[in-house]
């Protein structure tokens, strides 16, 4: 299909071979019959080639220094990010600990502290059930039982040292 209007914006994609087959064919047909567009296309192509050849004229930095600077920036950013993540994790852990404590306090069943008289009664009742506690004063002096063993077997000790002691005296 031949184009009636000058397809100027399509000329660069045309000369670069970037148009679809239908559109490319339409532009080709137009160029066959339009000397102005042919000249324009040739001129644009020449400009493209000139700019391509001179693109290095645009300013550019020293690339080794550029990459070193980039690496430093990247490292610094990751270091600060790690610090930030660590800080956030610490804060979260602390928050979770506080929340858990609060939860324990709130949800634990409330045992009212019994008055002193009740405590004494409980101790008394408990002692009826526990044999050892029944003789609490004896249990309290259990260390004496160890000494009792020694005392009980005193007569089995050899008398020799005593005689020696007696003869000396």
């Amino acid at each position, binding site marked *: 299909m031949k184009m009636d209007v000058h397809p*100027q*914006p*399509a*000329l*660069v*994609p045309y000369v*670069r071979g*970037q148009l679809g087959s239908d559109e490319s064919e339409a532009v080709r047909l137009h160029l066959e019959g339009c000397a102005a567009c042919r000249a324009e296309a040739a*001129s*644009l192509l*020449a*400009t*493209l080639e*000139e*700019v*391509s050849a*001179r*693109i290095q*004229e*645009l*300013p*550019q*930095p020293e*690339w080794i220094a*550029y*990459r070193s*600077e*980039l690496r430093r*920036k*990247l490292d610094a*950013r990751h270091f600060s990010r790690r610090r930030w993540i660590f800080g956030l994790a610490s804060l979260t852990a602390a928050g979770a600990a506080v929340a858990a404590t609060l939860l324990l306090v709130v949800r634990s069943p409330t045992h009212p502290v019994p008055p002193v008289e009740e405590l004494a009664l409980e101790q008394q009742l408990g002692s009826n059930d526990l044999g050892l506690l029944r003789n609490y004063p004896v249990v309290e002096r259990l260390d004496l039982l160890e000494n009792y063993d020694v005392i009980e077997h005193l007569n089995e000790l050899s008398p020799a040292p005593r005689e020696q002691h007696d003869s000396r005296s």
Partner: protein
Amino acid sequence: MAELPDEELCSRVAARDNSAFEALVERYQARAYRLAYSVLGSEADARDVSQDAFIKLFESAGKFGGRSQFSTWFYRIVVNLCIDYKRRQRWWSKIVRLRGSLPEGDEAGVEPVSFEPGPEAEAMRHETSTQLAAAFVHLSPNQRVAVLLQVQDGLSSREIAEVLSCSESTARVHVHRGLAALRKLLKKGE
């Protein structure tokens, strides 16, 4: 590493392969820098923003879905960062202007970001030492980006449109007008 396609290198960068990242940087450093320079018009700003684009690439390589070419995806990052940079500069210049004496009735607030020639053209004028760079100053940022992507990468109108977030026909117009202007300017300079 140097012979691997961009997309393969990008997927390796996503897996935190430093040598793949370095290969991509070496492959794209000049193109990313020139693209940023064409929008911002300052060598220092282009250096900063193009480096930021590589950092962004390193951090978000996993998000490259392969629906477009790697170059198109990456250039979109560069252009977005340039737009952000310009937006921040406008904020800052607004604040600086607000601190000075503003004439009555002057609108306070942030101007919408546009790709119309702005202070970057003035900056370019100071920094350009070559004929091509001097000619580039006279193009709009959209035209500069479109011509640059056509010339240095041979991107199609559809891909340029993707980078510039515009329609394909608009991208074609940018390329055509930019090249026509350069043709005139380069002839004049001869």
